[in-house]
């Protein structure tokens, strides 16, 4: 299955624009961009994304809180979540992976290759889910 629908949660508008161009204009994904956790929670069920790209540091509700809320929604339990962060402390990276993120992308990221990275992360998560289900 190919990656198509991506939910992007990011409080910084500039980055939202860049990501939209990189994923939609260049890669042709279907993207829904939210400017914070609350919006994402309310949109996620209707949008049913294949993958969520979630900024870790956001005012109000941060990435981890947002993820926890999304996981409470039905049908959202298995959506792969990729964190994006400017904090590159290893401890934080581990923390994100621990709460269920499948990958962490550091800022600044390479816009041109972002689509490819997400696609490969998505494929990898599908395989691991399949293995998990078989078990």
């Amino acid at each position: 299955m190919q990656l198509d629908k991506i939910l992007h949660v990011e409080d910084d508008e500039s980055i939202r624009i860049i990501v939209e161009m990189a994923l939609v204009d260049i890669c042709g994904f279907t993207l829904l961009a939210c400017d914070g956790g609350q919006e994402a929670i309310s949109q996620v069920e209707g949008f049913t994304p294949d993958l969520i790209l979630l900024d870790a540091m956001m005012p109000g509700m941060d990435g981890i809180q947002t993820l926890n809320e999304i996981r409470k929604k039905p049908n959202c339990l298995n959506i792969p979540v990729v964190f994006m962060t400017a904090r590159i402390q290893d401890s934080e990276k581990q923390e994100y992976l621990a709460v269920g993120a499948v990958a962490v992308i550091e800022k600044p990221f390479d816009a041109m290759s972002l689509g490819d990275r997400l696609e490969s992360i998505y494929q990898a998560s599908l395989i691991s889910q399949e293995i998990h289900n078989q078990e």
Partner: protein
Amino acid sequence: MQTPVFPLSETERLTALNNTGLLDTGPEERFDRLTHLAQLCLGTEIVLISLVDSNRQWFKSKQGLDACETSRDISFCGHTILGDSIFEVADALLDSRFADNPLVVSAPFIRFYAGVPLVCNGENIGTLCFIDSKPRQFTDKERDIAYGFAKSIEQEIIDRLQEQAHEQLTASELMYRSVLEGTRVGTWQWNVQTGDIVLNERWAEIIGYTLAELEPISNETWAARIHPDDNIKSSTSLQEHFNDENPFYDFKCRMKHKDGHYVWIHDKGRVISKTSNGKPLMMYGTRADITKQKNNELDLLQSRDQFKTLVANIPGVTYRCNPDKKWTMLFMSDYIYSLSGYPASEFTDNYSRSYVNIIHPEDRALLDKIVQESLLNQTSWVFNYRIVHKNGSVKWVEERGSAEYDSAGNVQFLNGFIQDVSKQKKLQDQLLKLTQQLPGVVYQYQLWPDGRSAFPYASSGIEDIYGVKPEDVVTDASNAFSTIYPEDVPAVSQSIELSSQQLTIWEQEYRVYRNDKSIIWLSGRATPERMPDGSTLWHGYIHDITQTKEYYLQLEDLNLQLNVTQQSLDLASEQAKIGYWHASFEHGTFWWSPIIYQIFGFNAEDVVPSSSLFKNSVHPDDIDKVLKSEQQTRSTGIVNEVYRIIRPNGEVRWVHELGQLVNKELNPDKIMIGSVQDITERMTLQKIKDEFISTVSHELRTPLTSIYGALSLLQSGKIATLPAKAEKLVEVASSNCKQLSRLINDLLDIEKLAAGKMLFEMKRLNVVPLLQRAINDHQPFADLHKITLTLHVDKQIDELFVYVDEHRLLQILTNFLSNAVKFSPESGSVMLSATLTADEIEIAVQDQGTGIPEDFKSKIFGKFSQADASSSKVKGGTGLGLALCKNLIEAMNGSIDYSSEPGCGARFFVRLPLSV
């Protein structure tokens, strides 16, 4: 005339005659009475008892004749003894055998002769003869009478012999008896067969009885009184005599005295007759009281034994010898055996060796000389010399001897005592050697009440101490004392005086002048002893302590310096608030400087530093870390730990502890020293800084992300097509954006490393693919600068592994390569290589740039370092790269360095240990 012949048994006849003992004896009544009676009875003029001797006839008794003997060859009796019966000549003048016989033709004018042989022991010893001067013939009756008289005479001869024998016997018995009585000897006669015993009075007296008291006398008289221990031996001895094994029964035994004690008696006797079947019959013997003799003998034996025991127990040889050249030994005690290996018996009378022979040849002459001199002066001698033991070993002995003189002053004997002094000699030698080894003098010093003093003994070391020889001061010590440093003389004198008065140990340090006028320090110590003559004798030791004294002074200097250092340390510690401590792993002891008490919030008076006090202060969240660190310290010997403590008032403080084991070789107590610094303020600042950097990086990166993303999208040309100039501008912006991004990343990495927050994913890997990747990654960048990238890998590297974080190693190589490309001239080349050096892999990047200027070398791995401050702008470096590389490679147990000659490029390399 016919001369009578000798009978066949002439010899026996003469013996028998002689045995009668009649020849040449005086006239005897018993014979004269018989011849007189015979003269009367037979009426002849002459009657003779004629004894025919070898060449005469001698008349024992004669009637009617004065002559006492006549020659045998003219005798009538010579003829008579040739027959067994009466020999008669009726008329000699008519008988041709006697007609011309002088006794016929002259006085006594014999005409008739009749002789009857006298027989004794079967031999005709002579005759009883009858002579007349007228011819006659005996009638048969007269012949019988003649025979009768002859028999009577023969009987008289026998009787006479018996009487004589009896008289002799009586005389000898009397003599023996008187002798026995004189010698106070008891006698006994014993009929062995019947057991009858006859004893004399003395026999009884010896055991305190009278004979009457012992009645009835029997075997029992004797058997009941013999000592039980002697009874059997007595029987044995008796039996031996009975069996003719001993000619006498000779036995000494004890008999019980009437008083109850035993007396020693000596019995001696023998069997004097035997029964017809050869059994002993009569036994005669004597008995003597030998108690006194026996006691004397026992006393003698005892005293001899005592003497022997006494002598044997003396650890030396006592001797008596003749004053000859060989010293002929009359007596030597048994100790000579252990001394020489030869028994004393071999020396006695030079039986098989002389004592001189075992004296060491080198010592013989001197010993002889000393003894001779002593004899001359009539003095005794003491001399030490060597003797050679049987086993070849040499022993030192001390001989003390003197001579015994007679009244004329002549030497009779030499007496002496020889003692084994090998041990003492050895000890003496050892002592001498030891004292020679001592770096000082061992001495005896004697001080008399009149002020005289001397060194009766001083080892040779005195020369080093006082510059005098032992013999120079043996009677006068002043030579030695003149060398004492004048200032110290009073102290030395006073201390000696005090020691002498109170008999306390003398101890003094003082100075003396050397011969070369230099001064040395001495330390003396001696124990005093009061001598009978009122003097004081010290036994002591003095040695040169100049060196020690110098060390002591140096030590005092060092102590002073140490004090200054200590005070400086205390001051610094006080100001920097760094406490220090030391502890012994071996003894579990701790010491804290005052600042540590302050840091931990303790009052130094209230607590004693200990492991538990320390651990109880550690924050519970950090205690595991501290314990783990302590565990590691035991193997590494190093402490470097940051943790929190809780003060007694509940306040939490951060501390940084550093410590290390003191040099192992000099540290038997395993002493560890260390410091503790209160870093609470620093940690607070650190936290603020970390948060600041984190925030800044986030805040910087977020816009950077947008700028970088926007620029790369623009550059991709997929969003829009830009005019050429705009494209150029976008390129500049993009390049600076990357530079900014790198700067932020490097900065964050460095801070992470410094804070120990960087995680390394260490893996065992082969570096070759990584090198290839580094080349590939940099190829576009190199192309941009028209630089050729080459890779050179030693063949064996293919097989080898290192243990690294792949990502971080790549980061380092990236840094090297980008620097090399940047600093290389256009069309130059950069070589990445991997080589094996000992047990490390060296990965190097060689460029062809200008090289590293000399003045920059020291700070090349520092932060924000670029040789040309302006070059960062041109070359796009952050100045943090090499500092980061150094931190990274060291965190992975590697090392970093470079080599460079200005103008010849630079070669940067890292070395990583091989992973087995």
